[in-house]
């Protein structure tokens, strides 16, 4: 019955839930979905993480490569992110070259990483002007159920945190490169950026802010891609992006900033716990 009602009156169906202060999946407005995180699950990648925020699943793997730095920035390494949204993750996507949405989301993710300065690209340089690491961070979304950027950032940061770079010795005279995969040093990650997505839904009398929206909620609030994304790194903001959907009144904005602060703490704990567990396993 409910399914038919949803099909016939999609707006009213959603309205009925929202006006009763509850969301269609039973969550409260500001309740986030559970986060499940697993690191180093891919054995073929140097570092990896699988994250599930509710149904949204993102796998991130990091591959390493050596290259010579750019001439204009001789002491900088590279961090290349790539996000794939295959047809598998939602019926919205067609197989083929990366969609606009994938490109935009990838740009957002890499922007957040760059802006938060959590990775110093100078750390990736081995010998200035000669040799530097290239970090290929490939993210694949297996199931897109909204708040994609949040999941991508968690997956990416957890993989970066588990990444251990092999020692490289470079002979300046013979230009010989020697990689020793047995002695590894962990990559320095400064801070921990966390993204929190919001959607704004317009009821006639007021605006409702929904935290961590599912894809259905995102659509009801005006199109794929969350309406409002706040990224905080420790106590600093490193990106607040808002596009599309309903407009955001100042009160909701305050609310969003507060929620994102709390959420950042939660996510931080999740990542820390997961990494600690991972270390224990490695030691055993």
């Amino acid at each position, binding site marked *: 019955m409910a399914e038919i009602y949803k099909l016939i009156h999609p707006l009213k169906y959603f309205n009925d839930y929202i006006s009763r202060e509850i969301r269609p999946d039973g969550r409260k407005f500001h309740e986030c979905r559970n986060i499940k995180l697993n690191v180093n699950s891919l054995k073929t990648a140097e570092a990896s993480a699988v994250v599930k925020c509710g149904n949204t699943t993102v796998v991130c793997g990091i591959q390493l490569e050596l290259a010579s730095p750019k001439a204009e920035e001789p002491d900088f390494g590279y961090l290349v992110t790539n996000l794939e949204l295959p047809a598998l993750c939602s019926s919205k996507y067609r197989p083929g070259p990366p969609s606009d949405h994938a490109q935009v989301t990838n740009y957002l993710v890499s922007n957040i990483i760059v802006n938060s300065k959590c990775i110093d690209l100078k750390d990736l340089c081995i010998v200035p002007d000669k040799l530097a690491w290239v970090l290929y961070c490939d993210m694949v979304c297996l199931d897109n159920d909204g708040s994609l950027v949040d999941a991508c950032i968690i997956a990416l940061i957890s993989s970066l945190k588990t990444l251990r770079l092999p020692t490289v010795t470079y002979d300046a005279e013979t230009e010989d490169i020697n990689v020793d995969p047995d002695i590894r040093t962990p990559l320095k990650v400064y801070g921990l950026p966390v993204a929190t997505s919001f959607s704004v839904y317009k009821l006639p009398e007021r605006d409702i802010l929904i935290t961590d929206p599912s894809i259905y909620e995102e659509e009801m609030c005006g199109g794929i*891609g969350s309406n409002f994304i706040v990224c905080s790194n420790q106590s600093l903001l490193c990106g607040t992006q808002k596009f599309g959907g309903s407009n955001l009144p100042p009160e909701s904005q305050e609310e969003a900033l507060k929620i994102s602060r709390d959420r950042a703490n939660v996510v931080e704990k999740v990542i820390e716990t997961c990494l600690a567990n991972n270390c224990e396993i490695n030691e055993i």
Partner: protein
Amino acid sequence: MGIEEEKPKAFQLKPMKCEFNFLSKSDGSAILSQGDTVAVVSVNGPLDIKSTSQSIEKSTLEVLYCTKGGKPSVADRYKENVIRQTCEAAVLGSLYPRTGITVTIQELEDFGGLLSCCLNCTCLALLNSGVSMRCTYAAITCAIDESGDIVLEPSKQHLDTARATMTFVFDSREKNLVTSVTEGVFSEDTYKEALARCHAASDLVFNFYREIIRKYANVI
């Protein structure tokens, strides 16, 4: 029929100049300069589009952003997305189902604040094209410099040294935030202050829109 408008005020914004119908063959077009930053926008539509991208509920907006260099990049896709989502919030697409509205933006000069110039110019071109809109919108860029001060409408030099840049778009009805794009790191308080400053400055842009429409209203 070039009509020009300068805007020196206590609350200083760069002088804005705008000309409608800059392109004769498109349904609506505008050229806007904010200081030395210049962009041209042409709007075509509502017109027929291929059936795969048609929507039965509303018109499909297509935004094409052309840089001066002409080489498309992922950053341009992102800009297109920002502009498209902003326009979608403003245009009453439900009045033109199964049609497409094409917005083409050409960058002419970039001396800082290009994104907000493009957004404002798009709004003017949409006004000129006669497409029904829910509201107008105004975009303002600001930068946070090294010492943490907020600079409205920063110049290229400011942008190069700035800690963070932010672009905010406000709607004309409730003056709420439509779009925000930020780069760099900043504290929450700075963010709020920048938002408030830009919010106040957006009124000047709306006044400018009204002035332009007033000048053109005499001839229609």
